[in-house]
């Protein structure tokens, strides 16, 4: 089966600086992948390239065999690393918005998650706390029945209890053919739910291995390995 995401010698330059340099990467379906790397290593650049918000300087990026565009946006559910919803909207308006936009949006799933997280549908976004807004955005993204979920720092701003719920949400809502790519610094929190990890360092892939391969080969957790590899 063809990979859901494929990068071939993918390079992105900002001015004369390389954000990504010659990245070759293929992700198969049905896995949860951690995209890990220190600040400025190119994680968000890669994620923006997947979503067509940036175009490659050189090389190619393919989502389900196609260059990012209208067709790939139908199958990619993207959680950006900042909030992108209008502050003046109410939760229920945002839900209606997503229903209109995405054929694969499940109102049933979103309702269940909103109830569990006790998010008031009548509340205006401007009245929600930072953490609640993040939860809402994650609910929107995970309520879609997508082939590829791209989550940029999904758990950074929420408390540990909500973090557990969010990880559970991710585990419950993804189907066996979907792939989830998660970028995060909170490795220890998500390590157990990952199939594999990709380490990015200064715009290059330095490691692409399964969590259990790392534990077998190095005798340490991904979190510990990361701290050693990227020691300041």
């Amino acid at each position, binding site marked *: 089966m063809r990979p859901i995401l494929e990068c071939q010698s993918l390079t992105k330059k900002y001015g004369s600086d390389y954000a990504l340099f010659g990245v070759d990467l293929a992700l198969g379906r049905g896995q949860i992948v951690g995209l890990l790397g220190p600040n400025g290593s190119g994680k968000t650049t890669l994620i923006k390239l997947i979503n067509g918000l940036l175009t490659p300087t050189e090389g190619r990026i393919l989502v389900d065999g196609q260059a990012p565009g209208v067709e790939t946006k139908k199958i990619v559910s993207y959680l950006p690393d900042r909030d992108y919803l209008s502050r003046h909207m109410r939760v229920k308006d945002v839900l209606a918005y997503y229903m209109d936009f995405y054929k694969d949006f499940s109102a049933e799933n979103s309702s269940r998650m909103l109830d569990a997280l006790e998010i008031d549908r009548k509340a205006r976004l401007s009245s929600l706390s930072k953490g609640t807004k993040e939860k809402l955005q994650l609910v929107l993204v995970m309520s879609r029945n997508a082939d590829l979920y791209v989550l940029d720092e999904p758990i950074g701003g929420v408390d540990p209890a909500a973090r557990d719920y969010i990880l559970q949400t991710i*585990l419950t809502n993804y189907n066996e053919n979907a792939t989830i790519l998660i970028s995060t610094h909170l490795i*220890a929190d998500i390590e*157990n739910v990952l199939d594999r990890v990709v380490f990015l360092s200064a715009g290059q892939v330095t490691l692409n291995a399964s969590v259990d391969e790392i534990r077998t080969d190095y005798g340490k957790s991904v979190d510990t390995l990361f701290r050693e590899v990227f020691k300041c």
Partner: protein
Amino acid sequence: MPWDLDNDRPIYLQLMERIQHDIISGVYKPGDKIPSVRDLALDAAVNPNTMQKALSELERSGLVYSQRTSGRFITEDETMLKKMKTELAQQHIRDFFEQMHQLGFSDDETLEMMQKTLKGEKQ
């Protein structure tokens, strides 16, 4: 409640151990159906593929068998269950002696201390 897992060892191995432990301690009885991969993964808060691997390994060892449509079951082979129990006990004993060696006690000294402890004597 997520399962309590160590950081430095492969996750699937720890999942296997946990399920073996659940079988020995009677959470699952011989012939019991075990929950689906997805439910077990959710309960443990681990990746479903990792849980799948743990169950496949248990299946390979014969401790668990699958019936094509109805799911996975614990073996009813009492000899095998007894063997697993013995092996686990031996492992614990080896670990214990290893720790005592690190504390500087020989096997004989350790045995002597164990007997005294059993008799309730103070060292």
